[in-house]
């Protein structure tokens, strides 16, 4: 890979990194705004703005992933791209483990050992 391509790939990797971790700042802001929204007259409108910001922040993460994949396919020898790939895979695994942990600990979406179906009617009903 020539120097110019390597430079281009590195720039894309930096943009990807900003897209991935920039939204964390947005989450911190929306978190504070949600507290304000709870005790304010314009709470509902503020709440909607926070929800739009949450959705956009995750969109940033998607853009980061797309850029990383683009670099890995177009510039496969770029080292920064390889590091980014490992980093994102680790983050995704940690997020999945966190969700599984939360499901088990908080009993959210957990409905007990028995099947949820208590009655299945046959043709005789």
């Amino acid at each position, binding site marked *: 890979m020539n120097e110019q391509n390597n430079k281009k790939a590195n720039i894309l990797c930096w943009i990807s990194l900003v897209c991935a971790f920039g939204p964390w700042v947005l989450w911190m802001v929306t978190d504070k705004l949600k507290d304000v929204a709870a005790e304010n007259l314009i709470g509902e409108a503020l709440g909607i703005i926070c929800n*739009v910001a949450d959705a956009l922040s995750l969109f940033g993460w998607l853009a980061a992933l*797309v850029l990383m*994949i683009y670099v890995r396919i177009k510039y496969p020898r770029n080292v920064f791209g390889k590091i980014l790939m490992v980093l994102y895979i680790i983050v995704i695994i940690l997020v999945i483990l966190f969700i599984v942990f939360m499901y088990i600990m908080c009993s959210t979406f957990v409905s007990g050992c028995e099947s949820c*179906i208590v009655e299945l*009617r046959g043709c005789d009903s």
Partner: protein
Amino acid sequence: MNAISPYSVTFVSAFIVSFAVVFLLLKKRGVPTNYIGYSILLNVVLILYGGKMFTVVTRGFQISIFTAGFSGLGGAIGLLMGIWIFGKIYPKGRTSLWETYVTVLPLLYGISKFGCYLVGCCHGIPYEGPMAVCYNSQYMKGGPYFPVQLMESIAFLGIFLASILIYLRGNRRNLVPVIMILCAIAKFSLDYLREEHLGKILSANQLVCIEFFLWGIITLRKNRNKIHEA
């Protein structure tokens, strides 16, 4: 400690089974292994994002994406976006990617709908005939309901079986639009049997189904014109 919900188990199983099938089919088509891995990574994330985003948008951003429930149809939109993006990055494999992922889409949807049937979410209209189902869990109490989720599972698994047979035979020219049309018809008609649909003429799900249907018809016409031109 409580047991894990059957919904989560079915949901995860749907992903594992479907992406294993995608991997085998794409490998057979000669797509490099690392490229298959990248496409799966992107599509899994986009399915989850699309599924949650659809719920947020249809509720007018009244709920956060982090607490929103998952919509299967939104997940399907996410997957189609993922295939489109990956096709732009890797144009050589565009056709293989579209044909393979769209063939497996009904399998993914069919298995995950079975999870809804077990838990009771997206349940059917009140009904007391054969196969009516009642729920009594922490998550859902009520019934008897029409087992619409089970019907959706059966319909989509049927579409998958028919599609995979055509896929393996190699006659794939119109496979993508035909699957999209069949899925749109199945989802559109079964949506009338959901309790959530009562009192509505067309639900948000059905509006998306109409778009999928029209897209399928337009693609079929384009394919036919291409044959005539050739």
